């Protein structure tokens, strides 16, 4: 009897937690799937399928300030590329990041939304309008 009520409580808590999560600004499953497909096509060989990167060469995308922090900076890295000395969690990476400016605003938004909510990351979604805004500031 006691065991069942504990189970029921746990179940209730879980359901509530799940409901609470789904109340957050929802990322449509379709966008995540698109983001994942685009990630595989444009990002995976360097950053790896699980976002772990390559030691000394290509930075990891797992719980780093670059990924979780300022959205606009992250969008800028994709649009402009990055070829400068960057320290991430005490390590340095030598390969250049090529510009992905040829991708559409929506595609970049989908990729970044996927990256920011995968590999253990939990950060807000990126909207195509966010990308558009940053793109407008780049010559």
């Amino acid at each position, binding site marked *: 009897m006691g065991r069942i009520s504990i189970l029921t409580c746990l179940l209730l808590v879980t359901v509530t937690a799940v409901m609470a999560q789904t109340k957050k600004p929802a990322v449509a499953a379709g966008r995540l799937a698109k983001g994942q497909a685009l990630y595989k096509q444009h990002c*995976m060989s*360097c950053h790896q399928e699980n976002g772990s990167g390559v030691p000394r060469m290509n930075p990891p995308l797992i719980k780093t300030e670059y990924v979780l922090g300022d959205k606009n900076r992250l969008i800028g890295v994709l649009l402009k590329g990055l070829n400068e000395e960057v320290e991430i969690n005490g390590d340095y990476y030598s390969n250049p990041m090529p510009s992905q400016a*040829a991708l559409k605003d929506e595609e970049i938004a989908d990729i970044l939304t996927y990256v920011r909510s995968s590999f253990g990351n939990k950060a807000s979604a990126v909207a195509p309008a966010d990308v558009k805004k940053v793109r407008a500031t780049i010559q």
Partner: protein
Amino acid sequence: MYKMSKLLLMATLAVANLTVASANTSGPDDPKPVKPDANNAGLKLPAGFGALVVADGLGRARHIAVTSKGDIYVKLDRAKDGKGIIFLEDSNGDGKSDKQTGFGNFGGTGIYVKGDYLYASSNTDVYRYKLDAAQKITDTQNPENIVTGLINRRQHESKSLVLDDAGNLYVNVGAYSNSCQEKDRTAGSMGMQPCPILDSAGGIWQFKADKAGQHYGDGVRYATGLRNVVGLDWNKQQNQLFVMQHGRDQLHDLFPALFTEKQSADLPAECLYAVKQGSDCGWPYIYYDPYLKKKMLAPEYGGDGKKTGGDNAEDPLVAFPAHMAPNGLLFYTGTQFPEKYRNGAFIAFHGSWNRSPENQAGYYVVFVPFKNGKPSGDWEVFADGFAGTAAVKYPGDAQHRPCGLAQGPDGSLYVSDDVKGTIYRIVYKK
């Protein structure tokens, strides 16, 4: 007369050697073999071989040099607390380092002992330190700056180096590019024609080993068309420079209409070249297909996976599987290992990263038998198990990655690891 005196000198040296060998009853010069670790340092080796961990936790240990006394200089990728070179000593001769000191406030990869000097490189410069009779450095603060101002644009930055027996220094200057595209690593971007990178990078430069302050203008572009060489060695038998090239990446990512993911994982070969002054190994215009056994025109220059190219480019001596990243090359001149290993080549493969979604490859040391300066049989895996996992799905999973190779005075083979900074010593147990 010259020959006579040379003979006399050799005889004297031989006697001196004998005296030294018999005089030593303990310490690192002791010919008594060291004891391998019970688990052979976690390595899988051919029958009769054993291994021990000499030192651990050094950081990103790139190349290594072992002195005639058996002490070890380790070049770190980044200086730690102002120390970019670690000196390992073994006072009781058990093969385990029991004293570590450091100096040299610069990170880098290259390190090599030649005569009375230790040569070491940052990613732009080459320095040398004077060694005393015990091959130790008395003045670690004031090295001579032999070469300065080599190009470093971060990608392929390692200035690996080796010396010949005629007073020359050979330095790799890797191309700061994957395939000389107008936009590096950008899908569909075509190659620059001619590739302007080759003026100052993408080759091996030769400098005088004993002249300070040399720049490009003082050196010779000895061999070109080499995308990035981390492992290189001077073959004393052939009196010739041998290099291992890191082949290009991302054929599928950059030209998805021409190459499948599978082709991209399997192409191109990682190649061993024997070079001489003026050699052109073909980068960026061609790559080597190990299945067709042909030099292929790169897609950036009009290739499609079928068109051949590079008629004047060198052919590789050995073509290894793609992307395995050869970071160390050593011709074995010792006598501790059995006959088959003598004068053959050991190659440390750092391990691949751009074979996904397949498992990665490499993360081992291979051996290529040589006869009269030419490969005389198929290559084989010599030491495996560095990664600590049966299959490496992601490069970050590898616990250790082989990087540098060196031979000890007793013929032991040393391997450095640039993940955790483990120094391995491989011995033959007889």
